[in-house]
């Protein structure tokens, strides 16, 4: 997994590439902690290059969503496709996140 973060005013775009799974999810948790601790209010996850996600990866994204929302912000998702899209649809997350 690769990830990159771009801040533009109040908005943060977090791009995640490759595989977000039980192996790589812990790495992303520290990024989530940073975003929450900095009280970022507008977070966009660019998942266009995310090839594979499992329940562990979903758990990190849901955690981000809950914590940012608790701070009065929101998380958007862009570029969802293929296997990650199938997982999001199954878990009904496509109804939760503005996609």
């Amino acid at each position: 997994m690769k990830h990159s973060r771009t801040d533009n005013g109040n908005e943060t775009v977090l791009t995640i590439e490759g595989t977000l799974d039980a192996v790589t999810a812990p790495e992303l948790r520290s990024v989530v902690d940073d975003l929450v601790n900095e009280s970022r209010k507008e977070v966009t996850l660019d998942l266009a290059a995310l090839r594979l996600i499992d329940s562990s990866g979903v758990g990190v994204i849901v955690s981000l969503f809950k914590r940012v929302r608790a701070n009065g912000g929101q998380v958007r998702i862009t570029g969802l496709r293929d296997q990650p899209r199938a997982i999001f649809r199954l878990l009904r997350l496509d109804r939760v996140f503005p996609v």
Partner: protein
Amino acid sequence: MILLRVPGTLEYRNLALRAVSEACRIAQHDEWEGASLEAQTVSALGEAFNNIAIHSYAGRPAGDVVVEISWTRDEIVMQISDDGRSFDPELVELPDLDALPEGGMGLFIIRSFMDEVEYQAGPPNVLRLVKRRAARAEGEIAPMSTRSPARAGGSSKLPSSGRSGSMPRGNADADRDRDPSASGWRMLAVDAGAATSLRKTGTAKQK
């Protein structure tokens, strides 16, 4: 058929996923449902592998995971075996998706994407997953059944030791329609002579 034996640690997970991905390509199953077939089989195997690496071999030296993948024009079958700690499928609740769970979704993903899910507690523990060509309704999940080979006279597809369980697929919405009092899981226990099976049907809790 693809037969793969790897250590039961997460670093070998992707190797197993690549194997089933390749099996989908060889079987030309993409003709079935586009990319969704591969997405579903890869997702299910990934969650099964996670469960073994994270739970089955937790607190003990990791043993091996044996992944056997076979296919026909009409189905793809994955059998995943390990020698770690077994679990009781009956105790695994379906997630409440409206509560936005951060865990406990693995078995739900497996059951949702597969047409047949059968678990036999070991050793070896054997999880058998079947994906069929037949179209399925959205929201339908695979039932899970448990059998005791010792009492049932053995299974033709599973090792004869230990308990086993199969999770047959059920339509949760239809089940609820038939039994308005049912919420979440519903268990049907069948003991027909020599054979004993436990069947669960249900879906994620909906509010």
